[in-house]
């Protein structure tokens, strides 16, 4: 069954066309990767799916779990099981990681008709998940992403994903800013979430991450469209030959 179906998606920012007809279907159980040069529209695609304001959808449709995703509020998308791991996680001074995650989890549980977790249950859950990601107690108590290194921020994204257990996780350049050890830890966290009822969309600029999160399908996004799709070998080919074959030259 298809988890998400993106059809002929066009989006503009400030009147500038960024997405120019994206078609992509991810079935439950599949991991798809999107690769592409800088400025191709990868982050834009992830933001449009998550519902960020400032994008105008000029054409196309997105169906998520049978629902019209584009007409849903941001938080409704999250509650329906969509999760975006941000390329640039946002700092929120004054709101602790624990409070943030507890509010998020309980809001999502509420829309699913589940009882909220109490403070003890929640703490137990978050501690276990944090341990999997080698995160310290101190990190989960601190204000959201404030004073976190680039790698810690990405780990924090992985922690949120592990706690919220989404149906579709979109990872936008989760590998950027990570050293190899952190990359392995985060990839392991992501792999733990793989399952027959879940799907993933892994956005990356480099092939390296795909050594650890092995995709079923690889797509190339260039100039706002998916210009090529293939198996995991496509990633290797791109690594070797670059994106020039798709009519784009990359700034070094």
């Amino acid at each position, binding site marked *: 069954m298809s988890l998400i179906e993106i059809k002929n998606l066009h989006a503009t920012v400030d009147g500038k066309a960024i997405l120019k007809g994206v078609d992509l279907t991810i079935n439950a159980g599949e991991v798809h990767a999107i690769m592409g040069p800088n400025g191709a529209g990868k982050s834009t695609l992830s933001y449009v799916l*998550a519902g960020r304001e400032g994008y105008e959808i000029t054409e196309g449709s997105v169906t998520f779990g049978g629902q019209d995703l584009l007409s849903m509020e*941001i*938080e409704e998308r999250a509650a329906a099981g969509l999760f975006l791991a941000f390329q640039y996680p*946002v700092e929120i001074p*004054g709101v602790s990681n624990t409070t943030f995650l507890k509010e*998020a989890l309980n*809001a999502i549980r509420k829309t699913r008709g589940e009882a909220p977790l109490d403070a003890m249950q929640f703490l137990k859950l978050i501690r276990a998940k944090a341990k999997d990601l080698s995160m310290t107690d101190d990190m989960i108590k601190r204000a959201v992403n404030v004073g976190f290194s680039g790698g810690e921020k990405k780990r924090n994204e992985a922690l949120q994903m592990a706690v919220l257990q989404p149906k579709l996780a979109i990872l936008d350049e989760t590998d950027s800013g990570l050293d190899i050890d952190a990359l392995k830890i985060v990839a392991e966290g992501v792999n733990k979430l793989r399952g027959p009822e879940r799907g993933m969309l892994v956005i990356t600029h480099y092939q390296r991450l795909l050594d650890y999160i092995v995709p079923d399908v690889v797509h190339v996004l260039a100039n706002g469209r998916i210009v090529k799709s293939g198996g995991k070998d496509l990633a290797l080919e791109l690594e070797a030959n670059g994106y020039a074959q798709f009519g784009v030259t990359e700034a070094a």
Partner: protein
Amino acid sequence: MRDEQNQTAKGFVEQVVALAPALSGARGEGLARFAKAGLPSTRVEAWKFTNLRGLDKLTLGPAPDAAAVTVDAIPTALETPGPRLVFVAGQYRADLSRVDDLPDGVVLSSLAAEATPMLGDGPLRTLNSALSSQGAVLRVAAGLKLASPVELVFIAATAGDKAALWNPRIVIDIADGAEATVVEHHVGANADAYVSNIVADVTVGIAARLHHYKLQAEGLDAWHLANVSTHLAQDAVYDTFVLNLGARLARHEARQVLDGTGIEARVSGAYAITGNQVSDITTLIDHAKPHCTSREVVKGVIDGSARAVFQGKIIVRPDAQKTDGYQLNRALLLSEQAEINSKPELEIYADDVKCSHGATAGELDEDQMFYLRARGIPRNAARVLLIGAFLDEALEEIINETVRAYFRARAEAWMGAR
């Protein structure tokens, strides 16, 4: 003619004078002075942003007989209330107050018994001292540390559809080496129109400590005009905080004179307002002597067509070398119509000082909102989280944890009710 333009709300002033009881001596002279000087218009620099003209719309009547007013709940910041004085419509209610069990050396009483000296400076102080018949006194003897916070509770009440005016006086005197915590509550019902014109005179002796907190949660048709004057002696610690939530117009004017070396003054506040409310926090921190520290953090949230005023003046006198002053003023604007008038003023006459100040006004951060909502937190809850975090930075200034938690809960209730 000039004088005329510097005055406003003349109709209100006339009503006040007409309703006043026959006064003799200094009080009579004070009232006459007030009648002549009138209330300051926005042409007077210190009142540039806060307009008292609306007082003219009130029809004043006598305050109700406090003894006949039923009081359902007495606000408290404490789990178990300690010593307190309760005033209803400006009048002392002995039956609701608790003044037993105070250690020797502590005086906590209604002011009625004490003579109230006439105050000259400013029309509102003059009005207060001419008409004030009641108020609160707390005196703590040298070296005494009063464990339980003292609460001063002012509950509004009006008679019929006439507005009432009361002029409570607060006197707090913490002698050398003593310590006390005072929590003021000013509360009222939304439907009641009244004017509470408060004057507080505070002295903190050598190496004494006073934690002085105030919650202003008047009814939304109320005028709350407070004037606090604090004198600090050598090595004193003064930790004060005002939380402005209520009133149609609230002005909290606080002047502190740091009149000795080694003083630490923490003068902070927060506000959360909406509708057509005006919250004015006007402070003067007067560094008269060397080696003192002052710290001021004032933050607030403005929604609807509400307007906030912050005027924060710091004077460092020629003598006051090695002064360390810090001031931060931040406003969060939640609507297009919300407004902040911020006027920080540093007057520095000494050369070896460290003084910094900063002022910002902004909206809720869109990226933060998106991030929270992208994790499933609904828009409103996300706003509450961000507003709470914003105000927390000011509330953290409150040293007493119990009071801090209570003020935070009150601010959260405000956010939840929006």
